[in-house]
């Protein structure tokens, strides 16, 4: 097929004036670097910094509150708690581990002997938690030690008799506070054999001689780990002392009328109770770090003002399987409620098959001269002589031709997003299993993109800089997770997450793409 042009200028003008070719990707990248570098930086780091800041504040405030509660209750309980040691037929040594240090000195000079008519109580202790143990069985309470402290009177009573059990059996309390073992220097245990008679109760007094020294020692309390060891050692020390004292094992020495109602009478907790009372605080706020990798099953829906375009996209794009990686740091409140954030990387991709149809139309013009008439000399009016010239008429024959060429483009359009999720949830424990339901909101920031887009009968290549995918958007999802505690604090988990289609994932395009997403994840968690 040949075309004709009158001159070289016309040739170039007609062929190249509407010529377009795809600009290189790197030009836009460099433009963005030069013109929008600062904005990108802010866009990425502000949410990250906010996230880190929020987590730090939560962690700091919860840790600080725990410490304050611990210390306040320690000081308060020093003034209010008593250790009650009823007379027990079984030596305490057998009930308690007696390997504690003999840090509580027994000084005869500081012994305070209480009258047997007074309640059989001893005061000591600095609990972090006020755990109330109520015993309804008076016999049982007789077999246990109760520990309490009354520094305001500078005396503590260790009752070795069940005299008060009749009145106090329903309101026995044990409040225990860990404090440094050095405090023992300030505590003296008095023991006294008041009577060997069955009706006479024996009272051991723990005298707190110096409040200041106790309070000073409180400052050096190890909040978490020393709680149990201290209490064990402290109660063991007391028991050791008590056991060593010549207390008769009277069962009948109960004075029903002589109970000091002002005192808080406590039944001594068992080892498990002690343990649980001190692990309660740490369990109140827990942490869960988890890493999840998931397989995404996506289902795209395309829409457009032009339904033909939407149908074309729906028919020619096929969603692909993608992976999604997440790291979460969660705060567990009351072992049930979960709040947290994290960071992750997700990918969207679909295979496309576009046909670009190029239609070129051109016109060919043929001109021809057709004889019209003869011209005779002006004086040859009769046309007797041959004509001196001829007249030709020009005819123009224009034909329009159209040629069509089709090019098929196959490939994959893909976008990678860095996302920052915020989640809240609920956890339910069943033995070694834990079921969680979480609601999640994510901020997605485009990290990388590449591919081609079919629009207005043209194929446009794109990368991150001129991507059809949105540079940032929010999405929401719900997730259910099953955790299995397979080793100590380590859990294996599987999750199913559903992200409904809420947003158009394309930008600046006449086509809308909405994404329904199911994610099946597996991962590992560390809970403490």
């Amino acid at each position: 097929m040949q075309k004709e042009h009158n001159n070289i200028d016309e040739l170039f003008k007609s062929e190249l004036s509407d010529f377009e070719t795809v600009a290189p990707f790197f030009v836009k990248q460099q433009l963005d670097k030069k013109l929008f570098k600062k904005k990108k930086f802010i866009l990425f780091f502000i949410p990250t910094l906010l996230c880190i800041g929020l987590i730090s504040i939560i962690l700091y405030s919860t840790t600080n509150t725990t410490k304050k509660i611990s210390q306040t209750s320690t000081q308060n309980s020093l003034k209010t708690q008593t250790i009650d040691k009823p007379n027990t037929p079984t030596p305490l040594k057998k009930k308690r581990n007696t390997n504690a240090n003999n840090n509580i000195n027994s000084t005869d000079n500081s012994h305070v002997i209480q009258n047997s008519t007074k309640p059989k109580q001893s005061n000591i202790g600095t609990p972090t938690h006020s755990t109330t143990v109520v015993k309804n069985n008076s016999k049982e309470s007789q077999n246990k030690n109760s520990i309490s402290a009354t520094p305001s009177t500078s005396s503590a009573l260790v009752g070795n008799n069940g005299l008060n059990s009749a009145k106090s059996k329903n309101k026995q309390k044990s409040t225990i506070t860990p404090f440094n073992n050095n405090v023992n220097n300030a505590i003296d245990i008095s023991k006294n054999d008041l009577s060997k008679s069955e009706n006479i109760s024996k009272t051991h007094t723990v005298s707190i001689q110096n409040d200041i020294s106790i309070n000073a020692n409180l400052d050096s309390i190890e909040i978490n780990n020393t709680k149990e060891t201290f209490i064990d050692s402290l109660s063991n020390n007391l028991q050791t002392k008590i056991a060593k004292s010549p207390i008769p094992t009277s069962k009948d020495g109960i004075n029903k009328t002589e109970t000091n109602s002002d005192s808080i009478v406590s039944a001594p907790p068992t080892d498990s109770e002690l343990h649980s009372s001190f692990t309660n605080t740490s369990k109140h706020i827990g942490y869960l770090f988890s890493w999840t990798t998931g397989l995404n099953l996506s289902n795209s829906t395309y829409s457009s003002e032009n339904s033909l375009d939407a149908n074309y996209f729906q028919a020619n794009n096929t969603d692909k399987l993608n992976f999604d990686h997440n790291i979460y740091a969660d705060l567990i409140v009351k072992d049930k409620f979960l709040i947290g954030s994290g960071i992750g990387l997700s990918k969207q991709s679909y295979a496309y098959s576009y046909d670009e149809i190029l239609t070129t139309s051109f016109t060919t013009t043929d001109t021809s001269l057709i004889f019209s008439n003869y011209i005779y000399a002006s004086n040859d009016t009769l046309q007797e002589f041959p004509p001196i010239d001829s007249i030709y008429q020009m005819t123009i024959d224009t034909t329009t031709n159209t040629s069509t060429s089709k090019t098929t483009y196959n490939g994959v359009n893909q976008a990678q997003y860095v996302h920052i999720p915020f989640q809240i949830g609920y956890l339910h424990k069943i033995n070694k299993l834990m079921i969680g339901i979480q609601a999640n909101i994510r901020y997605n920031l485009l990290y990388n993109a590449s591919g081609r887009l079919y629009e207005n009968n043209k194929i446009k290549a794109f990368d991150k800089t001129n991507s059809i995918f949105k540079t940032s958007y929010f999405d929401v999802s719900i997730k259910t997770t099953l955790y299995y505690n397979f080793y100590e604090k380590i859990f294996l988990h599987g999750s199913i997450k559903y992200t409904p289609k809420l947003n158009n994932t394309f930008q600046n395009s006449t086509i809308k793409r909405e994404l329904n997403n199911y994610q099946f994840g597996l991962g590992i968690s560390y809970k403490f």
Partner: protein
Amino acid sequence: MDNQNLKKKFIKGNKRAFDTIYSDYSNAMYSVCLRYTKNTDEAADMLQNAFIKIYENRKSFNTEFELGSWIKRIVINTAIDHYNKNKKMILVQDESYFETEVETTIEVEASNQLKVQLLTTISLLPDGYRTIFNLYVFENLTHQEIATHLNISVNTSKSQLSRARKMLKITLEKQNIIKQKKSNAERA
């Protein structure tokens, strides 16, 4: 984003608006740049500089006018600046070369590669020839305007254009892209 809204957002410096404009015009402007340069790297640099100017001068854009023409004008100015900056020798005032240009019809074999071949042929021209040819043929500037822009005389512009045309013809004929069609008179 409608056109007027796009213009307003662009003037305010909205990145998304700039991205849309870049997406709409970059390919066409890159093709313009290719006509004024020797190779794709040079064209990419020119395109980048042009869009930096477009962004930096966005506040001088009047929304009543067509955005495309304003952008094209900046791209052409960038091409002229590029030429002025890089010209190593002053064009000689050569007014002697005015070959009589015979108007002959050109036959072109239509093919998919024709546009690319023509573009390649332009890129083979010396810088001065190429710039003047482009300004005259594609931008419809007069010799007077070209002379003002490039700081040359009108006659120099004419002679450079004439040489450019001849060089293009010879090159295209050698490559069998065009053929001179004989006129009716010659046929007779």
